[in-house]
């Protein structure tokens, strides 16, 4: 199996001649040259580079030209694993990108990447035509003990992502032979290069603000600008419906923007409250119908497993209904997001952020530092969460829990926005405690909403003349949601108790959340 590799190139990154390379290697090995191939190499990853983060590299390689006829499909997926080994899936045909993992043939490549990328689509990260020439280095038993691959741009006129390179691949158990080959190539004047990974969209380094004394506006401006970048990055994928996470990430940025505007009220200009807060609330509302329908569609496979008496196939009509509804909702969303009004909104928001630091502070506003605003915001929201949670009793209506959930989200966003100012480890533990409370409240609220929605879907489907089987199956789903909601409600006291325990209180002291 292939082990780690070393990549070499000419000092001037120029073309590499094969003959001197073969001559040099022949001093110690029997060198067999493989056929010359022109290969289209399409590097794939998700938008947020989940494969790269997991140390995996996936390529869709298509052999376009080869010197001699070799029996294979000419098209394959190559997955390189973190240990340098590779997995090849043969018989790949007619794959088009972007695409979800379901389009891959079942087998080890799909098995390896499905848990990593989940519901995210594979997209093209780079697309290059390369000329490949493989050299097998054999010992006296004619056993291959190392491989060298000459990989160069297919056309010298084309602008290539990387120059001509020689890759020395070590084979397990024959590491010394690869080192010898490497030494011979270095003797030719080649030098080793590192493999740099592409930067991730949306992963722009967060401003490492650590000075609590900087103006609060500076911190807020940086955070809001970052959310705007994320919105813009996700917009093309959202409009093209590449996968459901583009809309989800877009909405998260909108929610974070809204929360930051609210937290920043003491230091931000009035226009933020009077104009931009409602504008982003409307934008969030605009995206809600499609997101809700996405969630139902994503949950449907799990919902089928909930059924005890009904047949899972009875939910096929619900699936078709959801698809129709989503198509209608998406058309409306896309129309709005392609509109002049929306484009103008983003442009104006960008302009607002660009001039935020230059806008004079209004006289009645307190000149708060970032640290002071962080302490005040975290403290205020934390107190509201504690008061709200303490007021939840056995008979509290669902809207009280919903209100508390929203406050928890505000606290979470406050901890994120002010993250550069606060102790990382303490923040991490505080978020963990908060997250378990949010999980319980989220399950409670989601089941509440889903129950009502499911009833609404059933009524509309009945009006359209759906089958009794479909309605009965949906009834079972509502019953299951009832049970889940009860369970979440029972878990609330324990989750809130953990959040409120003395150690959490101490954490909040350290974060400035208790005054």
């Amino acid at each position, binding site marked *: 199996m292939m082990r780690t590799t070393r990549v070499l190139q000419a000092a001037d990154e120029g073309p590499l001649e094969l003959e001197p390379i073969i001559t040099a290697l022949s001093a110690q090995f029997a060198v067999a040259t493989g056929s010359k191939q022109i290969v289209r190499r399409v590097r794939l990853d998700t938008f947020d580079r989940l494969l790269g983060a997991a140390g995996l590299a996936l390529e869709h390689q298509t052999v376009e030209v080869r010197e001699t006829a070799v029996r294979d499909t000419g098209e394959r997926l190559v997955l390189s694993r973190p240990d340098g080994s*590779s997995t*090849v899936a043969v018989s790949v045909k007619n794959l088009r990108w972007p695409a979800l993992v379901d389009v891959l043939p079942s*087998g080890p490549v799909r098995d390896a990447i499905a848990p990593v990328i989940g519901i995210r689509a594979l997209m093209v990260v780079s697309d290059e035509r390369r000329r490949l020439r493989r050299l097998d280095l054999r010992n006296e038993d*004619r056993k291959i003990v190392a491989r060298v691959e000459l990989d160069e741009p297919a056309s010298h006129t084309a602008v290539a992502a990387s120059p001509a390179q020689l890759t020395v691949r070590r084979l397990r158990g*024959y590491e010394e032979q690869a080192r010898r080959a490497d030494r011979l190539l270095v003797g030719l004047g080649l030098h080793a290069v590192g493999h740099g990974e592409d930067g991730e969209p949306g992963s722009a380094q967060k401003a490492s603000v650590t000075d609590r004394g900087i103006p609060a506006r500076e911190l807020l401006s940086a955070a809001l600008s970052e959310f705007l970048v994320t919105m813009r990055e996700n917009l093309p994928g959202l409009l093209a419906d590449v996968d459901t996470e583009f809309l989800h990430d877009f909405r998260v940025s909108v929610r974070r923007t809204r929360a930051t505007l609210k937290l920043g009220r003491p230091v931000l200009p009035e226009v933020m409250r009077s104009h931009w807060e409602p504008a982003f609330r409307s934008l969030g509302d605009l995206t809600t119908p499609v997101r809700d329908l996405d969630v139902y569609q994503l949950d449907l496979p799990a919902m089928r497993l909930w059924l005890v008496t009904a047949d899972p196939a009875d939910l096929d009509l619900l699936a078709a209904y959801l698809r129709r509804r989503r198509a209608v909702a998406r058309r409306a969303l896309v129309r709005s997001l392609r509109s002049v009004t929306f484009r103008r909104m983003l442009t104006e928001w960008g302009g607002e952020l660009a001039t935020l630091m230059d806008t004079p502070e209004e006289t009645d506003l307190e000149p708060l530092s970032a640290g002071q605003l962080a302490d005040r915001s975290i403290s205020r929201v934390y107190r509201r969460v504690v008061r709200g949670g303490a007021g939840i009793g056995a008979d509290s209506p669902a809207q009280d829990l919903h209100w508390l959930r929203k406050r928890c989200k505000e606290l979470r966003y406050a901890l994120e926005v002010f993250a550069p100012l606060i102790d990382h480890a303490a923040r991490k533990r505080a978020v963990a405690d908060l997250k378990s409370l949010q999980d319980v409240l989220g399950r409670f609220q989601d089941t509440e909403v889903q129950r009502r929605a499911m009833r609404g879907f059933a009524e509309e489907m009945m009006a359209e003349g759906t089958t009794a089987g479909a309605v009965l199956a949906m009834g079972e789903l509502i019953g299951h949601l009832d049970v889940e909601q009860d369970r979440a409600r029972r878990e609330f006291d324990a989750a809130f108790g953990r959040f409120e325990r003395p150690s959490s209180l101490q954490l909040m002291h350290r974060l400035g959340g208790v005054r």
Partner: protein
Amino acid sequence: MRVLATYNIKGGVGKTSTAVNLAYLAAREGRRTLLWDLDPQAAATYMFRVRPRVKGGSHALVTRKRPIEEALKATDFENLDLLPADFSYRNMDLELDDTKKRTRRLGQLLDSVAADYDMVFLDCPPSISLVSENVLHASDTLLVPLIPATLSLRTLDQLTRFVADSQGSRPEVVAFFSMADRRKRLHRDVIDAIPRDRTRVADTVIPALSIIEQMAVRRAPVPAFAPTSRAAQCYEQLWAEVCPR
């Protein structure tokens, strides 16, 4: 990680050819595959052009003085590694006898590389021994090549009883006919008459073909050097029947 052992009490029935060809096919599908040549005769090791030597020998492996990873060798084929044979494997029974959990040690050794491989093939020496007991415990599937002869059926009976009598988890036993010559009436009769109620018998029959014997000359699996041959197709069919999904 799934473990498949080619095993028979008798020698010369096609265990090594089967292990080598199926391991190659598994690797060709993209499964990270290891073949452990447990037979001190080292035929599988020879076919992959690897030298039959493990530093420290059987003793170092069994006693874990040397990690199994250090003995692994890449073959000429992508995704396919070999744990070579060593002449000292002839004493592996004695080494195993001196260890704790002496019937589980090979399985424990394989556990240490479980994260690196999707499939492991064990090419076993022909015998009933402590090595065989270890193989039973380490394997998910015991693939038993049978030459279509009356005595082979008796051997299969013995082997099935051996597996049934073993303690703990037992592998699935899958028998198949190997080196079959349909021109011979006896072969046809035995293939038709084998009882299929107690032991799973694969539908694929591997014929006696000279190209399979050429593996030792070409030092490569049949599907690698003769991909369109009948023998390659037969091994592909057999793999399709026995490969884990």
